[in-house]
C-alpha cells in the first residue's frame, strides 16, 4: 500500500469495512446498473408492472403474453437498479485544526472520508469529493474507480486547515454541480452560520439528494475540561482571551450545547441525517457507529 494510503486507510479499518455495507436511505440515481434502487422505471432486469401502450412507445417492450391473453397492448415496466453516487464534502477550515489527542478534527475528517470512499467504491458505487473552507477549494468528479480513493488522498494531502468556515456557502456551491441525486456527506465541525448551512442543505434536498451531516468534534469541545490560566487563541480570526476556563465552564457548555441542539434540530427539520463524530473515539468506532445508525433495509 502506498504511504499516502496507509496514512488515511489503515489495515484494521479496511478489514472492518470489508464486512460493512453502505446503503442509501432512499433512491439514488446512477449511470450504471448497480446494487441500489433507481428512481427510473425502465426496461431492465427487475419487473415492476405494466402500463398501457401509447403510440410512440418502443414496441419491443410490449408484453405479448398479456396481448395473447387479453388482446390489450401493454408495456412491461422494470425497476432499474443503479449504482450509488456519494459526494464527500470535507471542511478544511481553521476551526478543524483543534485536536486534543494528537489528531486534529481535520485529520479525523480526512480519515473518515477516505474510509467512506473506500467502502462505497468497494460496493462498485461512485464517489465524488470536495474540500472547502469559506468556499469550495477542490472538487473531484465522481468515479467508481478504486483509484478515486487515491485521488482523494492526494487532494487531502497538504491541505491544512486554513480560512474561515462557511459550510452553507460551500454546500450551495457544490449543489450546483452535484448532478443527479445521490448522497451528500458533509464532514465538518459546523462552527459556521447555521442558517446558511441549512439553506445549502435545503438546496441539496431540493435536488433529491440524501444529506448526511457528520459533525466532527473534539472531546474537549464537548466537556471543556481545561484548567489553569489559559490564553485561548480563536481560530478563524476570532481573537484571543486569557481566562481561567474552569470559571466559565458551565456557561461555555450551556452555549455549546445550545449550538448542538440547534444543529440537531435544524438537521431534523431539513430531513438531513446527523451524526456526531467524537475524535476521542477510534475511527472504526465512529464509522461503525455511524453506519449502524443508518437503516439497513431496502426501500420501495
Amino acid at each position, binding site marked *: 500500500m502506498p504511504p499516502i494510503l496507509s496514512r488515511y486507510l489503515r489495515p484494521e479499518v479496511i478489514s472492518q469495512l470489508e464486512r460493512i455495507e453502505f446503503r442509501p436511505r432512499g433512491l439514488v440515481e446512477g449511470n450504471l446498473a448497480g446494487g441500489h434502487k433507481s428512481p427510473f422505471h425502465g426496461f431492465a432486469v427487475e419487473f415492476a408492472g405494466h402500463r398501457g401502450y401509447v403510440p410512440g412507445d418502443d414496441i419491443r417492450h410490449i408484453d405479448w403474453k398479456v396481448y395473447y391473453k387479453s388482446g390489450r397492448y401493454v408495456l412491461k415496466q422494470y425497476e432499474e437498479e443503479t449504482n450509488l453516487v456519494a459526494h464527500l464534502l470535507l471542511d478544511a477550515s*481553521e*476551526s*478543524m*485544526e*483543534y485536536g486534543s489527542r494528537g489528531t486534529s*478534527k481535520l485529520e479525523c475528517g480526512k480519515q473518515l472520508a477516505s474510509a467512506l470512499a473506500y467502502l462505497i467504491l468497494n460496493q462498485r458505487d461512485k464517489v465524488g469529493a470536495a474540500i472547502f473552507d469559506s468556499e469550495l477549494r477542490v472538487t473531484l468528479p465522481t468515479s467508481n474507480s478504486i483509484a478515486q480513493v487515491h485521488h482523494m488522498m492526494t487532494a487531502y494531502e497538504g491541505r491544512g486547515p486554513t480560512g474561515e468556515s462557511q459550510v452553507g456557502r460551500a454546500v450551495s456551491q457544490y449543489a450546483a454541480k452535484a448532478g443527479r441525486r445521490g448522497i451528500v456527506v458533509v464532514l465538518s*465541525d459546523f*462552527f459556521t452560520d447555521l442558517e446558511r448551512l441549512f439553506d445549502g442543505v435545503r438546496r441539496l434536498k431540493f435536488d433529491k439528494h440524501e444529506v448526511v451531516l457528520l459533525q466532527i468534534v*473534539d472531546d474537549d*469541545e464537548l466537556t471543556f475540561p*481545561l*484548567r*489553569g*490560566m*489559559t*490564553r*485561548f*487563541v*480563536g*481560530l*478563524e480570526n*476570532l*481573537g484571543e*482571551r*486569557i*481566562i*481561567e476556563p*474552569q*470559571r*466559565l*465552564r*458551565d*456557561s*461555555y457548555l*450551556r*452555549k*455549546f450545547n445550545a*449550538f448542538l441542539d440547534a444543529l440537531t434540530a435544524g438537521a431534523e427539520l431539513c430531513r438531513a441525517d446527523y451524526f456526531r463524530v467524537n475524535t476521542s473515539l477510534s475511527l472504526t468506532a465512529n464509522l461503525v457507529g455511524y453506519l449502524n445508525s443508518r437503516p439497513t433495509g431496502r426501500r420501495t
Partner: protein
Amino acid sequence: MGFLHPILLAGLALGALPIIIHLLTRRRHKVVRWGAMKYLLEAIEETSKRVQIEDLILLAMRVLIICLLALAVARPKFNRQAAGPGPRLAVLLVDNSPSMQADRGGSTRWDQARAWARSLLNSLPAGSRVAVLPLCNPTDPAALRDPTAQVLLAADVVDELPASALSADPVSAIRAASEIVGGSDLPNRSVYVLSDFQATDWRDSGNRLADAVRALLAQQNTTLTAVACGEQDRTPSNVAVTRLDRTWRVIKVGRDIQLNGELQRFAAADGDMDVATTIQIDRQKADARSAGVQASEPRRLDYYARFDAPGDHEVTLQSASDISPADNVRYLAVEAREEVRVLIVDGDRHLDAPVQSESFYLRYALAFGQSDAVPISVDIIDGEDIRNARLDRYDVVMLANVSQVPPAAAGELVQWVRAGHAAVIFLGDLVDTQSYNSGFLADAKGGFLRAHLGAPIDAPRDRQTGAVGLFNLAVASFAGPIMTFFSGDDLADLDKAGFSRALEIDLAGNTAADNVRVDAALSNGVPLLVTRELGEGRFALLNTTADVAWGNLAINPGFTPMMQRLLVWLLAPTATSTNLTPSQTWELSLPLETMDTPVTLKRPDGRTVVLEPVVDAARQRAVRTYSDTTLAGFYRVTWDVGDQQQSRLFSVNVSSREGDLAAIDAGYLRELAGPASPDIVWETLQTPADRLVGARAGGRELWLWVLGAALGLLVAEQYLGRRFSGGTR
C-alpha cells in the same frame, strides 16, 4: 490598641503579594488554539462581570488574610489605658499555703505554680522589673520586695520560696503589692496572683479584700491577673486531721492516757468514707483507728497511748494519704511527768506550829485520796521567797495569805500563767490589798483580772450571845465546772461552811470578753470563788483564808473535794503554749544567768537557729523568742545547764480550715473589684505564661483573635474559590 512588636507591622507590605501573584499568573499561562471560540466568547461575554467581581472578592480576601497574619505576628493588644509595649513591673504573689501542696495531676499545685511563674519571668520583655511575694506572709524574709530587673534572681527567689503552714493572707499580700506598684515608675504594672484561691481565705476576707483590690486597681495602668492553680470545675474531696490534744494537761509517765483526735471531710457530696489513722509517739506507732467520716460533720476519735519516760514527747496523728497531704497530719508536743507539782507560797507560815500555817490545810486537802494517775507533789515556801521561785518546775502555784509580791515576780507569775500554767490566790489578813490592787489585779490584760479588793466585811455577831457570826455559801450561786459538781445531795456539807470575814471585791471593770466568772458567792453576795481562763492558763481567786482564820471552810468536809475539783479544773488543757498556730511567737524565759548560754532551736526542716536573749528588766529574765514558726511540725529548743542538757519542745499546726479546698471563682473576684473588674484577668495554669505577658501590660492580647479571623477568611476564601470555580478547584 497597641502592638508588642510594631516593627513587624512592616509585614503588612506582604499584602501586595496576592496582587503580584495574580498579575504574574496572568503572564504565565498556557496557549490553546481553540476552534469553538465563538461559544467561548459568548460565555466570556455572559460571565465576565461576575468573574471580575469574584476575582476582586478573592483578591481582597487574600490581601486581607496576609495583612491579618502580619498583624497577628505584631501581637496587637487592646489597652484600656494606652499602655504600650516595653518594660513593665510584674509583682508575683505566690500562694505557699498548705493547700498548695495538694496533688494536681501528679505534681503539687505548688510546684506547678512555681514552674508557671518561672515561665512568666522568662517571657517578660527586657527592662521589666519583678517583685516576688509569698501570699501567706508578704513580709517573709524570703520575699523579693524591691523590684529587680534581674529576672534570674527573681526566678531563684521563686524557686526558694518556702512552703508555709500559714493560710493565705490575700489582703496583706495585695496591699503589699499595691505599695510596690505605687512606688514604681514603670508605666505598665501587673500583679499576678498564683493561688488555689481557697474560699476560706479569700471569701472570709470580705470587705478588707475588696478595699485592697480596688486600691490596687485604682493605680494607673495596673491589672490583676489571677492564675488559678486548683481545680476550677469541682471541689476535690479531702480529709483533714483538724484536732489533736489530750484530756489532761499533765501526763503521767507509764500510764495509759487518752488523746483526742478529730477528722473532718470536706466534700461536695455526702456519704461515709472510711479513713485509717495512726498515732505515733516519738515516731513510734502507738495506736491506730479506722473510722467512717461524713462530709457534713467532724468525727472525733479517741486514742490511748503511754509515755515511758518523763520529758517532752512528739505526738503525731496521721490520716491516710489523700489529695492534700499537708492537712493529713497534726502535731502535739506534750510533757510527761511523774507527778503534778504544786508550789504553795505560804504568807503565814509557822514552822513551829504547822497547824497554824495556811499550807497545812491545803497540803492535806490536795494529798487526800489522790489518784494514782495524777500524783501530786507539794513544795512549800515562804511568801518572801517567791521572787526566787523556779516556776518552770511547777504546774500550779498557790499563794496563801501572801502580803505582797514584788512587781517583777508578779509580772513573771502572770506571764507564766498565761503561758499555760495555773495560779490560785487565797486572801487573808496579811494581804496588802493596795499592792494586790495595783499589781495582780490592776487590769485584765496585764494582771490576773481587773478586781478591786475593798475593806473587810465581818459577819455580824449574835446580838444576844455575842458569838461570832458567819456567812454561809450561797448554794444557788454555784456556777462553773468546779462548784456545779456540788449540788443536791452531793453538797459535801459545803452548805454548812461558815465565813466570818471576807473582802469586798469589785469586779465591775471586767468585760464579758475577759472571761471572768464568779463560781461561788457568800450569802451576803460577796464573791467567794472567782475564776478566769487566762491566755493558755487558768487562775482562781478565793475570798477567804486557806486556814480557819476567816471561817471553817478549811476544816469543812467539802474542802478537800472542792480543792481537788479546783485542781482538776486548773489542770484541764487549753491550747497550750507548746502547741502554736503558724507565725505565733514562742517564748523561752530563763534566769538572767543564762544570758551567755547558747540556746539553739531545731526547725522541722532540719535547720538550726541560735536564739538570742533579750533582758526583760521588769521580770529580770533572759527572754528568747522565735517568730518564724511558718512550718508545720516540731521545734526543739536545747541549752545546757551545767553538765545537763535542757530542752523544750513545741509544735506548729496548719489551720484546720486548710483542708477545705473549695475555691472562689472569677466572678467573686470581679465582684470584689467592682468598677475595676475589667482590669482583672482570670486564667489557669493551662494558659501559657508568655501569652499573658501582653494581657498583663494593661490590656488583652488580640493576636489569637486576629489569627482566628485570618484562618476564618482562609477557609472562606477556599470555599468561595471552589464555588466560583464551579467546584473544580
